[in-house]
C-alpha cells in the first residue's frame, strides 16, 4: 500500500493531464485559429471602386476622398477638449457621448469619432492632430458624381448591414457596398477584391512583423470601370423636363436594346446621399411619401398603358387574320357594350386601321378586339392566343434587364378572368377595356418603351440593358445581344407603323412634328383613379406617349408616362418629341415648346387629392 501510493498518484496525475490536454487541444480546438487569434490582425487593403462612364465616355461616377476622425479610447491622453471640439466643429456633449460609445464598443479598437470631414476641416486638423494622442485621421473613399442626374438608375452605396454580413462572408462590418441601381447590379465588378495582410501583433497590439512572412496575404484587385448605355446629356435633359412632374421616361436604342435614358420624376441629386449629411438627406427622401423620389417610376410604376396598347391589339388581330388593314368599323362617337355606350374622342365616322391608329378611335379597337376573340370557338382560347402574342412583346414579365428592381406589370389570362367572373362567364365584351389599354392590363414605362422598340424593329427586340462595357471590353452577354422575336410576322408591322407615323402627320400629335425627322408615335390618355378616404375618386388622366424615330432604321424608341398630365399629346407628347430631337439633332429647334415644358409643372394637380376638398379633373391648362 505504502509502496504503490506515490506511483498511483503519479499515474493518476499523468492521466488527468493527458485528459485535460486532449480536451483543450483536440476537443476545444477550433480550426478558425487565424480569425480568433489575438496575435494575428488582418489588415485589409481596399481597392478603389470602379468608375462609371456614360455611353459616350463621359464620366458619371468617380470617387472622392473623405476623412474620418478615428479614436482608440485606451490611447487617449488628457487633452484640451474645448480646442479639439472647435477643430472638429462639434459640441462637447457630442464629443463626450461619442467617446463613451467608442469605449463601450472597444477600448482597444478604433471607432469613428467624427465621420467624413470636409477637405477644409481636414486641412486645418491634420497639422494639429499629433497633439491629440489616441486620435487619428483615416482616409476613405466616397462616391463622387459628375452629374446631378440618374440617381435612381446609378444607385447608391451604403454600409453593409447584419444581413449582408451573414450572407456574404467577403464583406466585413463597416464596408460599403452597392445598395441600389447599377451600383448594386454590378457590385462585384465595381468593387474589385480587397487585399489582406496578416500582421503579427504582440500583446500590446504593436506590429511585430508579417505573419508567416506574408505567405497568406493577398493583393487587392482593382475594381473595374464600367461603361453604361445611358446617354448623360439625354438623361440630364429628360430630368430637367420632368421638373414638377411625376412619371417616368425610358429611351431605348431599338437596334441593341441599350437604355439611353431611364428617368423617374421627381428625382434627387445623387450627391445628397454622400457625405456627412447622408442620413439626414436619406430620411428626407425616404419619408417624402407624396413625390417618392427614391421610387424609380420608370421601372416600378405599373399602370394602365392606355392607347399605345392599341397598336399591340392591331398587330394581334392582323396576325390572327381577324382583320386586314382595310377592315373598317364605325364609330358613333363611341361604341356599345351591350346597352352601355362607351365614349370616343376621335370625332366619329368609319375607321380603318390607319385612321383608327392616328385618331386613336376607341370604337375601332373595340371592334378589332372582339374580332380577335371571334376567331376562336371560346373566349378562353381567344384569350390564350391573345396572351401569347402580347407577352411576346415582353409585357407582363420582368423583361430581364440588368437592374435590381422591377415590376412585371400585368397581362391578364383566362385563369385571371375565371377567378373574377367564373369559368365561361366572360367574353371579349366583358374585358373590352383591354382593347384600348385600360382595364386589367398594366405596364411599366420600360415595358412600354420595349414594346415600342419591338414595333420599331418590326417584330423583335433586344432585352433592355444598361451595361455597355466592362473595362475596355464590349459586353457579350447573349441575354442582351441576341434578338427576341415577337410572335407577329414582320409584314403586319408596316401598316401599324404607317398609322403611327400618321399620328404625327395628321393625327393626335400633329403639332409635335420635328422638322427633318420622321417620327412614329402613339398618344395615350389614361383614365385613372385613386382612393380618397376610402372613396374611389377619378383623377386627371395620365398623359402617355410612345414614339420611335426615324421611322426607317429607328435610332430611338421612347415611352413617356406623365401622371395626371391629361391628354397624351400634352406633357408626354411634348417631352417625347423634345427628347427625340435632343437625341437625334443634339439641339432643340422648337424653343417655345421646350420653354413651355420647363415652365409648366403639375404640382397643383398632385396637390388636389391631398387638399381635402372636392376638385375638378381634366382642366384645360393651356
Amino acid at each position, binding site marked *: *500500500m505504502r509502496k504503490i501510493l506515490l*506511483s498511483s498518484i503519479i499515474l493518476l496525475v499523468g492521466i488527468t493531464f493527458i485528459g485535460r*490536454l*486532449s480536451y483543450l487541444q483536440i476537443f476545444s480546438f477550433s480550426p478558425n485559429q487565424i480569425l480568433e487569434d489575438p496575435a494575428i490582425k488582418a489588415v485589409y487593403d481596399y481597392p478603389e471602386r470602379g468608375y462609371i462612364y456614360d455611353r459616350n465616355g463621359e464620366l458619371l461616377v468617380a470617387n472622392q476622398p473623405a476623412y474620418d476622425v478615428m479614436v482608440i479610447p485606451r490611447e487617449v491622453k488628457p487633452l484640451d477638449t474645448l480646442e479639439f471640439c472647435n477643430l472638429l466643429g462639434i459640441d462637447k456633449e457630442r464629443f463626450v457621448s461619442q467617446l463613451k460609445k467608442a469605449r463601450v464598443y472597444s477600448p482597444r479598437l478604433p471607432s469613428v469619432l467624427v465621420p467624413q470631414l470636409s477637405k477644409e476641416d481636414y486641412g486645418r486638423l491634420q497639422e494639429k492632430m499629433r497633439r491629440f494622442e489616441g486620435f487619428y485621421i483615416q482616409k476613405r473613399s466616397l462616391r463622387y458624381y459628375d452629374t446631378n442626374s440618374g440617381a435612381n438608375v446609378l444607385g447608391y452605396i451604403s454600409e453593409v448591414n447584419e444581413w449582408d454580413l451573414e450572407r456574404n462572408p467577403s464583406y466585413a462590418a463597416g464596408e460599403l457596398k452597392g445598395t441600389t441601381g447599377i451600383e448594386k447590379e454590378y457590385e462585384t465588378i465595381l468593387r474589385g477584391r480587397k487585399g489582406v495582410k496578416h500582421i503579427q501583433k504582440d500583446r500590446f497590439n504593436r506590429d511585430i512583423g508579417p505573419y508567416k512572412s506574408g505567405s497568406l496575404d493577398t493583393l487587392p484587385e482593382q475594381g473595374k470601370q464600367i461603361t453604361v448605355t445611358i446617354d448623360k446629356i439625354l438623361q440630364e435633359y429628360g430630368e430637367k423636363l420632368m421638373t414638377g412632374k411625376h412619371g417616368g421616361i425610358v429611351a431605348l436604342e431599338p437596334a441593341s436594346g441599350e437604355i439611353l435614358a431611364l428617368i423617374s420624376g421627381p428625382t434627387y441629386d445623387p450627391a445628397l446621399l454622400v457625405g456627412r449629411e447622408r442620413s439626414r438627406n436619406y430620411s428626407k427622401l425616404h419619408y417624402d411619401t407624396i413625390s417618392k423620389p427614391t421610387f424609380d417610376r420608370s421601372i416600378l410604376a405599373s399602370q394602365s398603358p392606355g392607347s399605345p396598347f392599341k397598336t399591340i391589339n392591331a398587330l394581334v388581330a392582323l396576325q390572327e387574320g381577324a382583320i386586314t388593314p382595310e377592315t373598317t368599323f364605325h364609330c358613333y362617337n363611341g361604341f356599345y357594350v351591350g346597352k352601355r355606350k362607351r365614349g370616343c374622342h376621335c370625332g366619329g365616322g368609319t375607321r380603318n386601321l390607319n385612321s383608327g391608329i392616328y385618331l386613336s378611335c376607341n370604337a375601332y379597337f373595340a371592334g378589332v378586339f372582339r374580332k380577335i376573340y371571334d376567331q376562336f370557338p371560346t373566349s378562353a382560347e381567344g384569350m390564350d392566343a391573345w396572351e401569347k402574342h402580347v407577352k411576346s412583346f415582353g409585357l407582363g414579365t420582368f423583361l430581364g434587364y440588368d437592374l435590381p428592381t422591377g415590376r412585371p406589370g400585368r397581362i391578364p389570362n383566362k385563369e385571371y378572368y375565371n377567378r373574377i367572373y367564373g369559368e365561361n362567364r366572360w367574353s371579349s365584351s366583358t374585358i373590352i377595356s383591354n382593347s384600348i389599354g385600360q382595364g386589367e392590363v398594366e405596364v411599366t414605362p420600360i415595358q412600354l418603351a420595349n414594346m415600342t422598340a419591338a414595333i420599331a424593329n418590326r417584330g423583335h427586340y433586344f432585352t433592355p440593358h444598361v451595361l455597355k462595357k466592362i473595362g475596355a471590353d464590349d459586353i457579350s452577354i447573349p441575354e442582351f445581344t441576341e434578338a427576341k422575336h415577337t410572335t407577329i410576322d414582320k409584314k403586319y408591322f408596316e401598316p401599324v407603323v404607317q398609322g403611327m407615323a400618321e399620328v404625327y402627320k395628321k393625327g393626335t400629335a400633329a403639332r409635335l412634328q420635328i422638322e427633318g425627322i420622321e417620327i412614329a408615335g402613339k398618344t395615350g390618355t389614361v383614365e385613372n383613379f385613386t382612393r380618397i378616404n376610402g372613396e374611389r375618386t377619378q383623377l386627371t388622366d395620365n398623359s402617355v406617349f410612345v414614339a420611335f424615330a426615324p421611322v426607317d432604321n429607328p435610332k430611338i424608341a421612347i415611352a413617356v408616362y406623365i401622371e395626371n398630365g391629361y391628354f397624351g399629346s400634352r406633357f408626354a407628347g411634348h417631352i417625347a418629341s423634345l427628347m427625340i430631337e435632343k437625341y437625334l439633332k443634339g439641339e432643340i429647334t422648337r424653343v417655345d415648346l421646350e420653354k413651355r415644358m420647363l415652365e409648366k409643372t403639375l404640382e397643383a394637380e398632385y396637390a388636389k387629392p391631398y387638399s381635402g376638398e372636392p376638385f375638378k379633373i381634366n382642366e384645360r391648362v393651356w
Partner: protein
Amino acid sequence: MSVSGKSVLKRLDWFSVLIYISLVFIGWINIYSSTFTDDNPSIFNFSSLHGKQLFFIGTSAVSIIIILALEANFYERFSSLFYIISIVLLLGLFIFGKTIAGATSWYDLGFFNLQPSEFAKVATALALAKYLSDIQTDIKRQKDQMIAILIILIPAFLIIPQPDPGSALVFFALIFVIFREGLPLYYLGIGFMVILIFILTLMFGTIWVGIILGLLLALFLLLKKPSFKVPIIPVILIYVAIVLFSLSVNFVFNSVFEQRHRDRFSLWLRLEKDPKKLEEIRKDIGYNTYQSEKAIESGGLSGKGFLEGTRTKGDFVPEQHTDYIFSTVGEEWGFMGTATVVILFTTLLLRLVYLSERQKNDFSRMYGYGVISILFVHYFINIGMVTGVLPTIGIPLPFFSYGGSGLLFFTALLFIFLKLDANRLNELT
C-alpha cells in the same frame, strides 16, 4: 570503497539520464522559441535568455561530473551540514536578500543570482533522509514524527515571508517520504478531508456541508450491520469538529485571505457566478492562466510548428519562458508535444520510484522518495496551473523552465540520487 569513474558510468541508470537529457533539450528548444526575436536569432548569444540558459545547461553538466565523481557517502555524511547552511542562507535573505519581482529570494553574486530556496530543497531532502534512516529514529514514535515534520517545516516557514508561498508548498511534498517510511496514513486521510471540506464549504456553504454530512452519517447508521458497534460520542465530536472547521473556513476565507487569494479561488472553483465579474477576474489575476490555456488550445493536435507560435511570438502569455514554458510546447508542438512531455515526466517519476524501491540502503531510498516528491509536486502544480486545472501558484517546471538556480539544483537533486543508486551494489560488500 571508492568507486572508479568507469564503474559509476557503467552502473548509472542511463534510462533516467536519457529522459533528463530529453527534458532539458525540449525545454531549451522552447525557451529559445519563446524568447526568440527576429533580430537575435543566434543560438550562442549569451546576452539573450536562451543563450544564458545554454550556459546554465553547461554548468549543470559540469556539476553532474562533480556529483558523480564525489564519493557516495559524502552526501549522507554532510547532509546535516548542508541543511544548516541552507537554513542560514534562508535567514540571511532577510538581511542581504535581493528583491526581484517583489520577492526577496535571491543573493546577488554578480554574474549570477543564487536562489537559496532551491538549494534548501536538496538539503532538506538529504536531511530528512538522514534523520529518518538514523538507527535511533522510530517513525512510529510521535516525537520522532514531529521532528521529521519540523525538518520540513523550518525551511518552508522561512520561505513563506519572502514571499514565495509556491516554493514553500514544495517542502510539504516531502511528507510523502515520511508516509513511505511509516507515518500513519490517517494523517493523509485527515489532510485530504481538510482540503475536501475546505473546497466543499467554499462551493456549497457550511449549511449544506453539515446537512449532507449528517444525511450520510444517518444513512450509514441505518445500513450498518447490527453487530457493528458505533462509538457514538466520538462520532458526534468529529461531526461537530467538521462543522466548526467548515465555519472557520468561511472566516478564514473572508477575513484572513486577501482579495487576490479569494479571486484565485473564485476563478478556480468558478465561485463567482456573475459573468461580468468573472470576466474581470479573468482579465486581472486570471489573465496568465487564460492566455496560457488559449495558447495551448490553439496548438491543436500537431501544433503550429517551431518558432511559429503566434501567441508565443506576440508575448501574450506572461512569464512564458519561466513558469509558463509549457504553453509554448502546447502552442508550437500541439497535443503531440504536450503529451510527450507529460509521458516523459510520468516515466521519469515512475522510474525513480522503481529505483528507490530497489535500494538496499535506507538513506538512499528515503532520499529517492524526497527527489520524487519534490520533482512531482513541481510538475503537478506547474502543469496543473498552466492548463488551468489548479489555481495559480508560481513554481517552475523542473529541467524545463528558464532559470539557473532551478536547473542547477534540480540537476543536483536528481544526480545525487542517481549516484547513490549507482553505488548501491558497493554498499553490500
